[in-house]
């Protein structure tokens, strides 16, 4: 079990983390979700030992590892831009973690080679071991990086925006594949992302961070349906802010004929199985987005429709939030 207790971190005058607490159970797949500057990457790097906290502790199985170096913590780390060793072949990259071991901890050459091959098979890059990273595609490189991280049999797999540099299709395939791998190998994984869709799709638990604090940690369902703060409501999924401080998801709005708030429709397009209708609340600049069943005829542009939330959420201090 990984436990992070009351972690604080400053970079000069900038406070990156204010007293963060987090527990990760074995086998969990955790997403650290937040905008840039929220402290999510800093937290990941502190858990890895690539960065050291100013205060608080990091515990691996109730053992304080705060003062241990990154090498001693035995974590697998996957970098956003792969960080592969360009002058080594793919197989040499994967074998690196084993070949730098000292004395009797180091397996024989044949054993290292066999392990590298096994890992390459696992990441579906069999037969590409002799290539150089420069000869691979982005998605293949990221899989090499993953195989390399897994070679040291890490207790914990940490991934920093692992799909950030990939195009949409590859990203989606790799996402699903990573999820399977995580389950299959019984890993404990934490990944950082700013993509809420990615977090909701992959993670067992989503930790939403903002300005160096954890706003909410919960299942994707909880985070989406029961956001703990206005920030979470806005950052995870889309949210309309209606008069009276009501936070409403686009699919929780319906067109009504008896009362409701008037909205002037100014844009309309098809979004999968929905019509996405965009407009402004009559007499104001408040943008409203709603999703309507695509089997029904959509409202015409320029017309005024009346909307009412089926489901909404209010926050104690709202009315002024963004």
């Amino acid at each position: 079990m990984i436990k992070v207790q009351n972690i604080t971190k400053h970079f000069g005058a900038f406070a990156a983390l204010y007293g963060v607490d987090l527990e990760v159970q074995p086998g969990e797949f955790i997403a650290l979700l937040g905008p840039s500057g929220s402290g999510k990457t800093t937290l990941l790097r502190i858990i890895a030992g690539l960065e050291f906290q100013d205060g608080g502790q990091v515990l691996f199985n109730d053992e304080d590892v705060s003062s241990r170096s990154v090498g001693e913590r035995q974590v697998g780390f996957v970098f956003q831009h792969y960080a592969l060793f360009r002058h080594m072949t793919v197989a040499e990259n994967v074998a690196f973690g084993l070949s730098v071991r000292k004395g009797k901890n180091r397996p024989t050459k044949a054993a290292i080679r066999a392990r590298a091959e096994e890992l390459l098979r696992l990441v579906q890059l069999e037969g590409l071991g002799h290539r150089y990273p420069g000869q691979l595609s982005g998605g293949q490189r990221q899989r090499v990086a993953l195989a390399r991280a897994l070679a040291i049999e890490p207790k914990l797999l940490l991934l920093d925006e692992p799909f950030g540099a990939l195009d949409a299709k590859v990203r989606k395939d790799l996402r699903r594949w990573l999820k399977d791998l995580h389950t299959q190998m019984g890993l404990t994984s934490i990944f950082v992302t700013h993509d809420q869709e990615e977090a909701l799709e992959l993670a067992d638990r989503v930790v939403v961070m903002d300005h160096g604090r954890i706003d909410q940690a919960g299942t994707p369902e909880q985070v989406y349906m029961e956001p703990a703060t206005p920030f979470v409501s806005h950052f995870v999924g889309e949210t309309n802010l209606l008069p009276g401080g009501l936070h409403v998801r686009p699919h929780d709005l319906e067109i009504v004929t008896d009362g409701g708030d008037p909205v002037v429709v100014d844009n309309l397009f098809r979004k999968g199985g929905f019509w996405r209708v965009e407009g402004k609340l009559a007499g104001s600049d408040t943008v409203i987005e709603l999703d309507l069943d695509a089997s029904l005829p959509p409202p015409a542009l320029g017309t005024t429709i009346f909307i009412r939330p089926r489901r909404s959420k209010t926050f104690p201090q709202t009315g002024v939030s963004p």
Partner: protein
Amino acid sequence: MSSLATPFSVRKTSWRQPSVLPGFGLTFGFSLVWLTLIVLIPLATIFLKSAGMGWHGFVEVGFSHRAIAAYRLSFGTAAAAALINAVFGLLVAWVLVRYRFPGKRFVSALVDLPFALPTAVAGIALTALYAPRGWIGQYLEPLGVTVAFTPLGIIIALVFIGLPFVVRSVEPVLADLGRDVEEAAATLGANRIQTFSQVIFPAIAPALVTGFALAFARGVGEYGSVIFISGNMPGKTEIAPLLIVTQLEQYAYDGATAIATVMMVFSFVILFGLNAWQAAQRRRLGA
């Protein structure tokens, strides 16, 4: 041109692919003319001039005992100096890239100074320092180390002249080498020495070789700074460029060109070899 008439014709020359980058013909032609005028024709005249003296005469002057000693000294000291520069230039580049410290810009500008300084000035200054009664020389003398008027002095002058080449070649590559690559090595359990020798060094080695080659080439041809500190004793501390000048002063143009030709061929072979190695490296990295 012809590609307009037969748009689907298969081109025989595979090195000339149709490209959206315009002006290949123009720029390539211009480069060729330029190189011919600036490099090739002057070099060709050296060959022609030395060819005029016949094979026998050429060997007699170009491979005389004095000339061979001079080549050995010039190439040997240039190689030694370039090697020293490779080590310490790498260190300087490392410090300039990795750390922030007050006066960094000043230090960086200092590195380029050998480029700008008239080399004779450097030679005179170094001689003054390292002469047996000079500031540094007086302390080395009791230790039995004489710098001025020995090959060691030549090496010091060439180290001074060649430093910027290594620093400026390595610096951008080192800066470009992401922190994440080192961090990756650390997460995989490599210690600092392993990280340097297995990850950082191989990545910057091609740039280091470039720097070495430039410093070496410069060292072989260097004249101004060396003649003051070397003492110029024939067969002992007489460098090949000086031998050429000596020949010229005696109006022995053929002899001068013969020596120049030998130097040129050696230099070209060495530089070509280094370039070929680098090209192979680059291909391997897929860059």
